[in-house]
């Protein structure tokens, strides 16, 4: 690790950010999706739960911008409200992952080589070996399907990710001379972790959080697709895809709209993450 690995707080962040194409694209997409989600809480063109069989399978029109589904619900309204589901699930899952994973990773790094380090990292490896989907299925079986279980399942999957990232990013920090300087200044491990390690790995964590958000959106879609996510009447992009599947031959539009929305959202978040990485962490930028 060289000097550029750790960067000083920069005054020109915003100026640089506005010139960074992928950050800008990603930020615009992410903000658009977030704004749509927020808007859907107070307004959608139509009631996204209103089933009116008489209106079923309408093609896109001025009234129904993306047409209607087999229950006569407005596809556009459902996609808008589906954003809330996706965002809520992936944010809570990242929250769970960070709240548990980061402290564990920091603790393991602070106690490097000791039994706590081994216990934490082996557990992380172990949880990692369980495909998240199996965790989701088990949770569904025990607690019934629902959005909470999706959050927990994805959250559990996020825990070892954040633990490893926090651990991996902290280790080189602990090797740095300023940590020894802090110890000479009488600081203990906890204080050093709080005052020196955490601020210095914050950018890495932010970048990882963005990546996990986009993975969370994909995972939520996959879980909803196989019926483990949010339950009707609350719309979800993944379940819309599931419902569209039998209509693939008749109305591919039903599968295209939610699918493209997922792609756009995940793409946006990934671009945002790449951009943040460039802007926050020059060393990692090269690896893009």
């Amino acid at each position, binding site marked *: 690790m060289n000097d550029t690995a750790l960067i000083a707080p920069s005054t020109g962040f915003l100026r640089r950010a506005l010139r960074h194409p992928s950050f800008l694209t990603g930020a615009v997409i992410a903000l658009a999706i977030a704004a749509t989600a927020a808007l859907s809480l107070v307004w959608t063109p139509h009631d996204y739960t209103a089933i009116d069989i008489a209106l079923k399978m309408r093609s896109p029109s001025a009234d129904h911008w993306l047409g209607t589904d087999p229950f006569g619900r407005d596809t556009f309204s459902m996609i808008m409200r589906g954003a809330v589901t996706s965002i809520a699930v992936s944010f809570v899952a990242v929250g769970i992952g960070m709240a548990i994973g980061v402290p564990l990773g920091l603790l393991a790094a602070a106690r490097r080589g000791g039994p706590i380090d081994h216990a934490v990292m082996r557990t992380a490896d172990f949880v990692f070996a369980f495909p998240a989907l199996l965790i989701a299925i088990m949770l569904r079986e025990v607690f019934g399907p629902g959005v909470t279980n999706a959050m927990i399942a994805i959250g559990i999957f996020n825990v070892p990710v954040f633990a490893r990232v926090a651990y991996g990013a902290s280790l080189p920090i602990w090797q740095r001379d300023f940590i020894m300087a802090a110890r000479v200044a009488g600081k203990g491990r906890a204080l050093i972790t709080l005052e020196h390690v955490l601020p210095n790995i914050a950018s890495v964590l932010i970048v990882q959080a963005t990546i996990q958000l986009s993975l969370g959106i994909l995972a939520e879609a996959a879980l909803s697709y196989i019926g483990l996510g949010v*339950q*009707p009447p609350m719309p979800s992009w993944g379940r819309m895809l599931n419902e569209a599947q*039998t209509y693939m031959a008749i109305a591919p539009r039903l599968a295209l709209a939610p699918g493209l929305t997922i792609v756009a959202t995940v793409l946006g978040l990934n671009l945002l993450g790449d951009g943040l990485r460039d802007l926050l962490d020059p060393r990692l930028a090269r690896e893009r």
Partner: protein
Amino acid sequence: MSFSRRVFLALTLATAGLMGVAQAAPRKDLTLAIPLEPPHLDPTAGAAAAIGGVVYANVIESLTRIDGAGQPKPSLAESWTISPDGKVYTFALRKGVQFHDGSAFTAETVKFNLDRARAADSTNPQKPLFEPIDTVEIVDPATVKVTLKRPTGLFLFNMGQPAAAMLTPGAVGDAKTKPVGTGPFKFEKWSKGASVDLVRNPGYWGPASKLDKVSIKIIGDASAAFAALMAGDIDAYPNFPAAEQLDQFRADPRFKVVVGNTEGETILAMNNGRKPWDDVRVRRAVSMAVDRKSVIDGAMYGLAKPIGSHFPPQDAGYVDLTGKYPFDVAKAQALLKEAGVAPGTKLRLVLPPPEYARKSGEIIASQLKKVGLEAEIVPMEWAQWLSDVFKGKNFDMTIISHVEPLDLDIYARDDYYFDYKSPAYKALYAEIAATTDTAKRIELYGKAQQMLAEDAVNVWLYVLPKFGVWNAKLKGLWENMPIPVNDVTQASWDE
């Protein structure tokens, strides 16, 4: 020669030519697909309908058999006599019948099978069917006398159900993986998750099948099934899962689409033992709140027949009660108010996995919302549905299709999941069960339907339709599905 004559001639010649080819080599194989894989192939050891769906009548036979119209017909029992008190059935067995492994079918076999099914350690899923049997006696190798504890009107029908299959004693242990029966087809191979293959049984006692090979594939996904039919990978899908795709098959001359009936009364079951559904006014209000037409249009593509009580329209004794509680939001609200059910009352609407339940449930939830009932949709897998709803009665409402034929008895059971408690109905059903006279029975069936509808025990939605899609040249498949089986014994290719 005019143009049209020439065309006609050409067509005739072409048809003749095709027929010639067909006559030279009529197809002797059939590939059909079913949505669910059977867990195993022993109908006497598992409840899954898919078991009978594969082996019933094709591989394994019973004393009687149920035909496409739902009537019991002679099978391994050539004929029978019933004592005047309706308690003693004497079956004359078909002679010279051999199992696929060469063992003989005799009165011994019948006694073995019936005794096994009702034994204390029996794991027969339909054990109650055998409960009325008091004794089974061997009169001679070709005659069996069965004495019942009480007259049982449906006994012949019950003896034709998959669970009453006759297995050879020597192969009972392996029946789950290698069923050995007396049917026109022998079990050949089961590629788990993919298909079950059957071949013609050359030693069959009855008229030989016109098919040499039958392959039953498992394709659960509607879009995969659609593509497989279109590609000609399968010849028939007797119970096609997606109504919305039928129009495409109808438009294609290669296919025949048959919308048939099943015995599956699809109901919105209410927990009669739980407040507020224990109040008949509330149940009536719910009945009025549900718009059957919308449900059928939305969930079944408009292709199901509505019912107003627990009885399918095609069966003898049916009474049309669909007009009893017409769709009326205002009236439903008034009734609820009268019964003291506040708007915004929450309820658990538990939905088992099948599409019909999930789709109907979503529509019904939105309909209930209009009368002020907030239904929380709780989807469940079968295992949990069985333990939570069916056994634990932990639900307010659920949607389920009762596919067993002539199952009015469930309303007379103690402690059944929807918890209907009516001594009057119990008495009525006892009378039905003891009645062997057909006309009298039919009349009583009518009374039972009226009584159930009056009490609005459940909301009866529709009879589960059966969408058969198959190659237009194929004939002899069942149009209806009185019991959930795929009888291919009469199937053949058009010549």
